[in-house]
């Protein structure tokens, strides 16, 4: 179908010639996007391709440098989220915008009622939410406090919030990133009901199989420009991936190997809960030389506690931790480094790097207290700079030089520097916590191939990821975590995604915990 075939009136949303620059960075350039009634359009692109910027312009968070936005034929005033809401645009953000200490009902009605009408509207509001829940399959208790809800339930509240405000156009920013496969199926069911009710949806994602499953049409962004617009019926995943990155990229596949001796063993370890974060509950796990152990699970189920334990930040309450057969007595980050544990932290910006520091300073953050970087309390910055230059060359870090501030690097290049920092000292054990989150396809392939190479060189790798695809393609053995408990080890290929999903949802653990 070509553009001339349809009348302008068919479109509920038209973005025309949108351009946005941040200084020298061109985030969006000449982007045109149309959305029809009852249509699902997927917005595909690597990180930094301009998806989020475009949606922020549509929603009025940013003002475009050029171009216009039309909703139902009416131009939308720029930079006014209120006008976007009033015109029927609803956005479900990747990071939820909910108040934890308020009820579901309060969160949904917040900002929709006038200051003086409290009480009168509540019954009507409750009835309306009940009706919406029923119609769209979004079951959630209106009086429950949002803080007590699971991630999937919170997302339903976000969607209800948009529907309650009479949204006719729903924008979902990476909605499946935090869901189990079963929850994703439920979300898709809801979206299909929404389409049947005449809503239109923009679905932002980089998971190709989901895009193929839900979207009618696919718009691919690269470097801020539309590089392709295809009907999902007329394409396949490989072609979409090629469009996204501009060339055929094949992610590395790890071949199974015979594991070596146990390098690190947790024996019935429990750790305290930290605030709302789950601790470990009676966890036993073996990390063997030459093996990648994948840890799947929905975020917030104790993966952070396990990562903190291996990193040396937390000591076990109960149970034994052994490294190469010896039980640990004291356990600190320095001890972990001394035992040749490489640690790739979950949050590159908050714990992996110091953003005000240069690449050189960041490169020696772990090794700074020993020669060659420190001799008799004096830093040897020449040695540090040589090390940084080595990493930059060996790990292909794109930067202006070792004295550049690391905050100016892209996520992928930042991660490459961290990889260099932790892998150069030839570690025995590698903790990779969400090592590819937020990276583009090229960087993902690079990081994964480095992890596989380290495994092949005899290191034990513990890979934590929320992305089941990553876990399944890399791991020799898979464990699932739920509420601080660990599933048995499933060798590669013995469990399907759906079966793992059930474990992620907490099934199968009953009766498995040892009697204390």
């Amino acid at each position: 179908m070509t553009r001339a075939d349809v009348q302008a009136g068919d479109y509920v949303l038209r973005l025309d010639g949108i351009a946005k620059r941040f200084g020298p960075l061109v985030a969006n350039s000449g982007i045109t996007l149309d959305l029809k009634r009852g249509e699902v359009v997927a917005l595909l692109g690597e990180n930094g391709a301009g998806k989020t910027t475009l949606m922020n312009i549509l929603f009025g968070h940013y003002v475009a440098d050029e171009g216009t936005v039309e909703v139902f034929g009416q131009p939308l005033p720029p930079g006014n989220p209120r006008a976007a809401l009033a015109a029927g645009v609803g956005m479900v953000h990747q990071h939820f915008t909910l108040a934890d200490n308020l009820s579901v009902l309060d969160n949904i009605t917040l900002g929709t009622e006038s200051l003086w009408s409290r009480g009168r509207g509540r019954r009507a509001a409750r009835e309306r939410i009940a009706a919406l829940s029923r119609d769209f399959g979004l079951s959630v208790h209106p009086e429950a406090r949002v803080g007590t809800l699971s991630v999937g339930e919170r997302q339903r509240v976000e969607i209800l919030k948009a529907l309650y405000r009479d949204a006719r156009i729903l924008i979902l920013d990476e909605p499946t990133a935090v869901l189990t496969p079963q929850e994703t199926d439920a979300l898709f069911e809801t979206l299909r009901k929404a389409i049947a009710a005449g809503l239109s949806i923009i679905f932002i994602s980089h998971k190709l199989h989901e895009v193929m499953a839900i979207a009618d049409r696919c718009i691919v962004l690269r470097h801020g420009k539309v590089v392709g617009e295809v009907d999902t019926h007329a394409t396949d995943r490989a072609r979409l991936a090629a469009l996204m990155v501009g060339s055929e990229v094949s992610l590395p596949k790890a071949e199974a190997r015979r594991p070596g001796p146990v390098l690190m063993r947790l024996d019935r370890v429990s750790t305290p809960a930290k605030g709302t974060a789950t601790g470990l509950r009676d966890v036993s796990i073996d990390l063997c030389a030459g093996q990648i152990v994948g840890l799947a699970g929905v975020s917030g189920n104790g993966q952070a506690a396990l990562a903190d334990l291996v990193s040396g930040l937390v000591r076990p309450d109960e149970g034994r931790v052994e490294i190469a057969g010896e039980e640990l007595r004291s356990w600190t980050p320095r001890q972990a480094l001394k035992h040749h544990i490489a640690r790739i932290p979950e949050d590159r910006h908050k714990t992996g790097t110091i953003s005000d520091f240069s690449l050189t300073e960041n490169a020696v953050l772990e090794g700074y207290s020993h020669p060659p970087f420190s001799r008799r309390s004096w830093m040897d910055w020449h040695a540090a700079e040589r090390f940084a230059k080595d990493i930059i060359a060996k790990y292909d870090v794109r930067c202006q030089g070792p004295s550049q501030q690391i905050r100016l690097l892209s996520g992928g290049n930042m991660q490459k520097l961290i990889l260099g920092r932790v892998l150069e000292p030839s570690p025995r054990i590698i903790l990779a916590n969400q090592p590819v989150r937020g990276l583009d396809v090229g960087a993902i392939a690079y990081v994964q191939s480095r992890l596989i190479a380290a495994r092949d060189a005899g290191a034990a790798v513990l890979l934590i990821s929320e992305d089941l695809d990553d876990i399944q393609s890399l791991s020799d053995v898979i464990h699932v975590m739920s509420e601080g408990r660990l599933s048995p080890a499933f060798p590669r290929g013995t469990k399907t995604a759906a079966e793992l999903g059930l474990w992620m949802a907490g099934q199968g653990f009953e009766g498995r915990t040892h009697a204390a």
Partner: protein
Amino acid sequence: MRLEPIPNPTLARRIGLPAAALTATTLMAALLALVAGANPFAVLGQIVTGAVGSRFALLETLNRATPLIFTGLAVAVAFKAKLWNIGAEAQLYAGAIVAVLLGTGALGSPLVLPVSALAAMVAGALVLLGPVLLKTRLGVDEVVTTLLLNFIMLLFVSYLLEGPMKDPMGMGWPKSPALIKDARLPRIVEGLRLHWGFALALIAAVAVHVIERRTTFGFEMRAVGSNIGAARFMGVPVNRVLIQTALLSGGLAALAGWSEVAGLKGHLSQDLSPGFGYTGIIVAMLALLNPLAVVGTAIFVAGVFVGSDAMSRAAGVPTYIADMLLASALLFMVLAIFLVRMRVVRG
């Protein structure tokens, strides 16, 4: 209205905005002079000549800058590690007390100067040790403890000067006996009113710069201040670094009091410091916590004070104008530095 970060600010922006802040400060001074009923050009001129217009004025400014360099360094070091030491005033008086204790005959030449300087640093460090231990052990906010210690120390000095340390020859004034000649810091050039304390302050600034940039401790200190979570993850002994930083900061602030007594006043009195400890915060912030820049901002701040004093005598405008000038200079400069990296956009 919203703020957007600027990834790579242009050179024009980096220089132009601070220059604009200085211009705004000058305009503010002119406005204040107008309000006070004086000729703004005359007032500004008198402040400048009063601060740097003659050899006497210039030396007076450098003398006044000496304690400000020390307290500015003390604050800059502590703030660099995000240790909010508001108590430089108390640490300054600790140094001054030690200068009197050891300088009134307990020790003779050549030991007295180096020993009393080191002892003063230890005393200042100990004053800050309490608050930092309370912070690292119990999580007590050091802003509160260091600030309140200032008042405790002032009352303690008052007790000393009315009691055990009172000068018997002082005609009843609350001041200490005078230091012996060996305990006094000599003048750098005979005949010029500038003592070796100023040179020591310059050496201290270079030393702090070297510690921050070249030593392992300095690296740890900057890491803790820039991102305490990452520092902890990397195995930096955070609490030990905070305590070491506190000892350094307290020691530097104490040298301010020590050099005022040993170099300028020759005795301890309750008006030894007109708030050098607090003004040190302005000095450090204007210098963006850079120890070498502290020297420049301390001289600038001292010049504003000295120049305003002179202008006040000549034009009859109250010296409070100096405080208002410094306050507006700080506000404009902080705003300018913020706007170098951020831009306001409409919408």
